[in-house]
């Protein structure tokens, strides 16, 4: 009996160690959904994938920068991030006084977020993957028809400085994922697939001289005002922007399609 006990202890130890190495992920069962901005066929298929339970924290990002000196604030190329990159850090490897280790990392560009995920053997989620997980509330995988769902998200949009809160401070959704709404906005792999430009009440998605095939892309779900805000943000971003309220999390494909 004794060796078995020890074996169990060893195994639990092993698991706890690996869990510390990488942030926790959960499985998302794929399916079809209708995105706000869609292809002409409307429905989009999302395959099974794993997603980080929480956004990447200051602590994890700091560890990453320590291992990858090219992403230190003093080393970063202007091509890859604007002047707001990690602007509130005290130095290359020190957080600011007001920043919590467990708060989500912000003021980072798309390039560094992408490299972070690559480094972990993961990748950034696509817009469709992100939206697919984010349309859940506590009990339903797709809560977008509920009035309360939209109201809750919009009430977050009105709250100031939520990016300073720790991860896990918002609700756990249907998939056991935290903080998709209510903490920070998040980078997506293909944020640059949102083809809107300029003043979005006037020249939305019909700038056929600037965008080829633009008429094929339009909004489908006019009710989802919160999603409009997210798409508008994505449409206005450039990959080198480091924004105070924009963080990220990583995902992993299941079937090695990448």
């Amino acid at each position: 009996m004794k060796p078995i006990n020890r074996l169990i202890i060893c195994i639990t130890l092993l698991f706890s160690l690996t869990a510390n190495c990488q942030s926790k992920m959960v499985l998302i069962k794929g399916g079809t959904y209708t995105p706000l901005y869609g292809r002409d066929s409307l429905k989009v298929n999302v395959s099974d994938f794993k997603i980080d339970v929480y956004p990447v924290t200051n602590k994890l990002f700091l560890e990453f920068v320590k291992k990858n000196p090219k992403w230190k604030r003093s080393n970063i190329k202007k091509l890859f991030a604007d002047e707001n990159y990690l602007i509130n850090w005290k130095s290359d490897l020190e957080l600011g006084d007001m920043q919590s280790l467990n708060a989500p990392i912000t003021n980072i560009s798309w390039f560094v977020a992408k490299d972070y995920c690559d480094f972990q053997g993961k990748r950034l989620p696509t817009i469709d993957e992100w939206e697919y997980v984010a349309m859940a509330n506590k009990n339903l995988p797709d809560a977008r028809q509920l009035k309360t769902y939209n109201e809750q998200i919009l009430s977050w949009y009105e709250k100031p400085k939520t990016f300073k809160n720790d991860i896990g401070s918002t609700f756990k959704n249907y998939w056991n994922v935290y903080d998709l709404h209510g903490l920070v906005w998040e980078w997506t792999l293909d944020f640059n697939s949102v083809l809107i430009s300029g003043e979005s009440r006037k020249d939305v998605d019909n700038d056929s001289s600037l965008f080829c095939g633009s008429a094929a892309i339009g909004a489908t779900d006019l009710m989802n005002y919160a999603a409009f805000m997210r798409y508008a943000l994505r449409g206005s971003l450039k990959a080198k922007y480091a924004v105070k309220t924009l963080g990220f999390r990583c995902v992993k494909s299941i079937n090695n399609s990448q």
Partner: protein
Amino acid sequence: MKKLKSVLIVLLFVMSLVTCKKKKATSASNNLTSFYCPMKCETDKTYKESGSCRVCKMDLIVTTQENSKVLKASQISDESIFHLTSLWNTKEDKAIQLKDLKGKTLVMVMIYTTCKAACPRLVADMRNIEVQIPKSNLENLRFVLVSIDPTNDTPKRLREFAIENKMDEKQWVFLHGTESGVREFANVLAVKYKQISPLDFSHSNIISVFNKGGELIHQQEGLGVNNKETIQAILELTTEN
């Protein structure tokens, strides 16, 4: 039984160590010191021992392995696209990085060859620009067409496309990349695109001009727009020196 137990424990211990250490191995770098001339009289030449430069006689400066890497990179500016490390295939099936194009003025556009709507006009815009550049300037100039459709636009397909469109001379460069490399490059150009169906993409129509150091100098947005400014920018870049 005792033996088995100890073997198990050792094994588990090793495994638990391995899981975390995996990534550490790559970051270890050897700190070889070398010396270089502050005036760069012999460009990148480094010496094993301290002393003075053979050309200008100034004292050599110590550098570590890591520093010398930074120095090499700093020859191109912070905003240069040559910092991108993604790999590309040319239509001749040669593997290159963008920095292999260093030293040439670059006119870049993103297209896909199955495109029926805007790309033929974008390609025509590129050709219209090309015919207005004097032959003598072409030597220092490359027109680069990057495919946003890595699946269908294989190097072979790009080669056929080049021949069909009479863009087979050496000033025309076609690049086929990985999905992630293409996405990254599009983000550098601020080009937006979205796959609509397996053969169709929606994308921004932007022609970008880069100088020899890979810095963005000019962008022309839209189709069939007046290309005067673009040509002006290219002429200025290719006739300097």
